């Protein structure tokens, strides 16, 4: 598998999976990844906002603008 394929297969695999999205500001968003695009704009479902590890907010759906994204990581199970 080429490196590029490895990236796109990761992106395909995580659709519909619970993920943690960390922003440059340090805020975490946990939710189910609905989709993402080439700017790394992200649509999350059942989103929970964590600031300093504390739950601060919940959103049914959330759109996150890609420029704020530090990383997307998969989550084994919702906490």
């Amino acid at each position, binding site marked *: 598998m080429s490196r590029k394929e490895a990236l796109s297969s990761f992106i395909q695999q995580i659709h519909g999976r619970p993920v943690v999205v960390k922003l440059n500001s340090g805020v975490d968003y946990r939710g189910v990844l609905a989709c993402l695009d080439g700017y790394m704009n992200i649509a999350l479902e059942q989103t929970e906002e964590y600031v300093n590890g504390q739950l601060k907010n919940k959103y049914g759906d959330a*759109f996150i*603008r890609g420029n704020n994204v530090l990383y997307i990581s998969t989550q084994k199970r919702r906490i």
Partner: protein
Amino acid sequence: MADDGENVSVMTVKEPLDLIRLSLDERIYVKMRNERELRGKLHAYDQHLNMVLGDAEETITTVEIDEETYEEVYRTTKRNIPMLFVRGDGVILVSPPVRVGV
């Protein structure tokens, strides 16, 4: 494929901006940089997330440290703007209204 605006409930979100498109003419919540939040009716948007919001309410949160107790005091200031153009680069998160019955 579902047409724009038709069959919204069965329309799947194929790209993140679809989520914004489905919120047109609805009141949305926008989290901005510098601890600012906006709520307003989404009239228009583009790919940069530039947006036009009607009947917008801006909430600004500031933290002040009490000089004697060193406690963090959160203060929110609100103001209402009948029509607001938002530059997209300040946007962090957009959330559609909570849909009733979901």
